[in-house]
């Protein structure tokens, strides 16, 4: 498995976990603490994000929320920058697994 494939696999895993965190924590809270959706499997950084922003970001399955400095410049581009987190989008050809979203996670 190449580093890029491993990164995508980790990002999808983190995103799937964040979907669960959203389901549990979003009902009566304004903010969530989600996992950084970067490509480093050992990362356990968290990101504070409002429920509304998270919902908005999840509308596009090619976007991931990462901590500052966790973006992969060669396969991602930063589309949004906030004091708490960055929103990155897959640059170039988006892997199929990313487009399908976390519900259909498979090995890239």
């Amino acid at each position, binding site marked *: 498995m190449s*580093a890029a494939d491993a990164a995508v696999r980790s990002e999808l895993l983190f995103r799937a*976990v964040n979907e669960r965190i959203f389901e549990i924590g979003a009902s009566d809270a304004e903010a969530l603490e989600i*996992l950084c959706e970067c490509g480093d499997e050992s990362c356990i950084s968290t990101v504070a994000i409002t429920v509304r922003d998270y919902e908005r970001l999840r509308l596009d399955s090619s976007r991931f929320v990462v901590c500052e400095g966790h973006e992969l410049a060669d396969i991602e581009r930063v589309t949004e920058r906030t004091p708490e987190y960055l929103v990155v989008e897959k640059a170039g050809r988006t892997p199929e697994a990313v487009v399908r979203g976390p519900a259909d996670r498979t*090995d890239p």
Partner: protein
Amino acid sequence: MKVMGDDDKLMQEHGRSVVAAARELHARRTLLVAEARAERRRGRKLRDAAVAARDQNLDLSWRLWSLMALPEPPSTIPLSWDVPRVASERLEAACVAAEECAEACAAALGGTQGEIRRTLASISGVAGFAADCGRVGDPDSRRALSLCVRVIESNSSLLDGLGRTPGGALAASSTRRCAEECTRALAASYLDAEV
């Protein structure tokens, strides 16, 4: 025939100098793009090498633990590890513990707010996800278990504080049990792969 005036000559010279500058800039840009591509290729190679080195390091840590040179097994597994999946009995125990942890943390949400509340929601989500992955035999089961252990361990001091509150004792103890069972399941999977 129209004779070119000084202004026209000036304009023409200016035009030429602009074209020359544009050519020069284009050549510089081409060079920079080529350099950037080379750097990206170099970056990818370095990252591949870093991932391989980390994998090797993790694999060695697991070996050391199996030789009893390390007291605790590592909480992360190397990317290169694949089947066999987690030993079924241990996996079952880890799934049960993770489910209980997810439920206890979700139940404790009501009496909390702020950082503790957000952390409980995170742990509940991670543990619930790990339990589901284990139950359906997801290829990412071990990664999910590993992530669950790391998230719980990284919040250990906050969970210690929660354990001293009346409503949080159950949640705190279930997170500890979850981390232990998930660690055992990972260790069992390693030993199974060794046999």
